[in-house]
């Protein structure tokens, strides 16, 4: 967790993204931001507000509506020595650029045997709970984490946003940086001042416990901690791990925890079938089967195409802290 001190600032996730991008533009002339409405509009969440006035239209580029080429052009910039940070306005719009991401960016270093590389960050807001309905709420990590050559992170706290985004910006390989849009203004925290990085592949234990391991990421990490704290009052001891990094993923932290608690509950907003939880379950079953006292369980989004606009549909899709607490309680008592 972030250290609370005189050398840190309280901010929310949107502000953390904004501050980090600002420093990147300031400190490295090769950095450009490319996406829709990032210039005069300052991004639809105001992340890049006033950037174009300070850094110029050539560095904060408002593109036509053309997602395949937003990523593709950024790849070309990266191959030719710039450090582009591409934005897909909502993760729901990422699909036209799917080939550029998985077929091109992910393979550039590999197919050229290292002669060409693709230092590219693709940022996109994802996730529901904001009445975004069918085309402004999806989670896309499961489509991409499967792909060798990509790195994927999904921070939940402002301090992690800054540290992981800095790592992404410095990374010589393509990184998909997922920002849960509901956490943008909802989640505030202490963020250390100055430049720092958080390595990929390192999860964070948010709350220690002895009876159950909960692994989560994104918005749900916050609900999971809330649920676990409520159960604490009933004498139940639940450990909550924030994955933070989806590819690469932290095996050691998960296994250490499971070996201690002997029970694993994976919670994620994305659809259950084929989601991140499936890979985690397989890995734990392969490597820690005899440390388990209960079947691994996944509490995930339902396997329907998307959450609908009507509130009951959104609420049915999303998991609440109460639902998470119920699942945790059942597992502890198994």
């Amino acid at each position, binding site marked *: 967790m972030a250290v609370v001190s005189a050398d840190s600032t309280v901010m929310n996730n949107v502000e953390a993204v904004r501050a980090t991008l600002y420093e990147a533009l300031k400190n490295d002339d090769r950095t450009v931001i490319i996406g829709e409405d990032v210039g005069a509009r300052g991004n639809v969440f105001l992340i890049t507000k006033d950037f174009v006035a300070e850094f110029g239209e050539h560095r904060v580029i408002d593109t036509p509506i053309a997602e395949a080429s937003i990523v593709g052009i950024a790849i070309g910039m990266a191959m030719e020595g710039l450090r582009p940070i591409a934005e897909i306005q909502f993760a729901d719009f990422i699909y036209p650029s799917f080939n550029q991401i998985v077929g091109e960016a992910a393979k550039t270093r590999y197919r050229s045997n*290292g*002669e*060409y590389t693709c230092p590219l960050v693709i940022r996109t807001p994802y996730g529901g709970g904001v009445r975004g309905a069918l085309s402004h709420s999806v989670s896309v990590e499961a489509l991409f984490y499967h792909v060798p050559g990509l790195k994927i992170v999904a921070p939940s706290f402002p301090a992690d946003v800054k540290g992981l985004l800095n790592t992404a910006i410095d990374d010589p390989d393509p990184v998909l940086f997922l920002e849960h849009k509901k956490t943008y203004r909802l989640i505030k925290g202490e963020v250390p001042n100055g430049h720092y990085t958080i390595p990929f592949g390192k999860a964070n234990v948010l709350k220690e416990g002895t009876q159950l391991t909960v692994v989560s990421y994104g918005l749900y990490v916050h609900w999971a901690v809330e649920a676990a704290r409520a159960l604490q009052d009933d004498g139940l001891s639940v450990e909550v791990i924030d994955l933070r990094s989806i590819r690469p993923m932290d095996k050691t932290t998960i296994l250490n925890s499971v070996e201690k608690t002997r029970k694993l509950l994976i919670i994620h907003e994305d659809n259950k079938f084929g989601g991140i939880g499936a890979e985690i379950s397989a890995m734990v079953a392969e490597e820690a089967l005899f440390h388990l006292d209960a079947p691994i369980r996944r509490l995930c989004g339902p396997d329907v195409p998307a959450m609908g606009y009507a509130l009951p549909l959104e609420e049915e899709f999303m998991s609440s802290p109460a639902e998470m607490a119920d699942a945790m309680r059942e597992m502890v008592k198994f």
Partner: protein
Amino acid sequence: MASTDIATGTLERHGLSDDQLRAIFRNMLLQRQLDNRGFQLNRQGKVPFALGSEGHEALQAGAAMAFNRGLDVLAPYYRDLGLCLGIGLSPYEILLSIFARASDHNGGRQFPNHYSSKAAGLMSFSSILAAHLPHAVGAAYAIKYRGETGRAVLATCGDGTTSEGEWHESMNFASIHKLPFVMLVENNEWAISTPLAKQMAEPQIWKRAAGYGMPGRRFNGFDPIETYAAVKEAMDRARSGGGPTLVEGTCYRYLAHSTDDNDMTYRTREMVAERRKQDPVPAFEAVLIEHGIVTAGDVAAMRKSVLDETNEATDTAEMQPYPQPSDLYTNIYEGAWQPWQS
């Protein structure tokens, strides 16, 4: 045919010297020779796949002559053997790629004809049509961004690729930002089995330029000198900040798409034979001889030298080792590749 002035009989050279004209011709011979070598090796069972470019020799040699080595960037597609040779790739590098050896630029990972060379300014590309065009546009943006004059990106594609959404998105972005970018379409009338009439309703691709607010022109891709002139004009415009151009060179694809294609299933021998009459290699030879730039003896010597060079490259490349199984795991990322990190 080359632009011979009918009245005076002089050759319109567009500033090309005798040496340059001979170099263009040699490039054409070398392209055809290496093309054939790929097919030979495939028929001998030594390589599983080959893809030819017969019909494109003049277009590619002429365009290569307009490319400034060490400055310009090339973003080609998989039928650009001649262009890659013309900007400096060696037959040996070509054969390493055909044989998929470890010392190939791409470590034997890429399909043949998917060359790349950082040193030559040849951007790495995949088999996905049009996917390289946004990359080319991005590279052009980087050049302009850094204020580098005298540099431009030459991107190529076939007629089929112009139907791709990313062709459109690339042209649009390049034109909005007046990037140092030239879109060279090598219109050979076929996209595997799809003839031009099924690919587009307006067969003259250069006419789309106006819709993007950029200049466009068409030239005879069987004429290397006319090609050179058209591509040079566009590249000069791009290099000096004048923005992008769409240039369309017409030629023909004499062979099937690749060794995995049988073009007799969708066109006739007569059709192809008729267009063979325009074959740019013998046509340019005839022009050079007619204007006294080479003799028949020179040509024979050139052919022999090209064959020798090809043979030597083949023999040396064939002896090189394949990549090791462990090479599968290198150059995925800069650092560790395992998705589960301990």
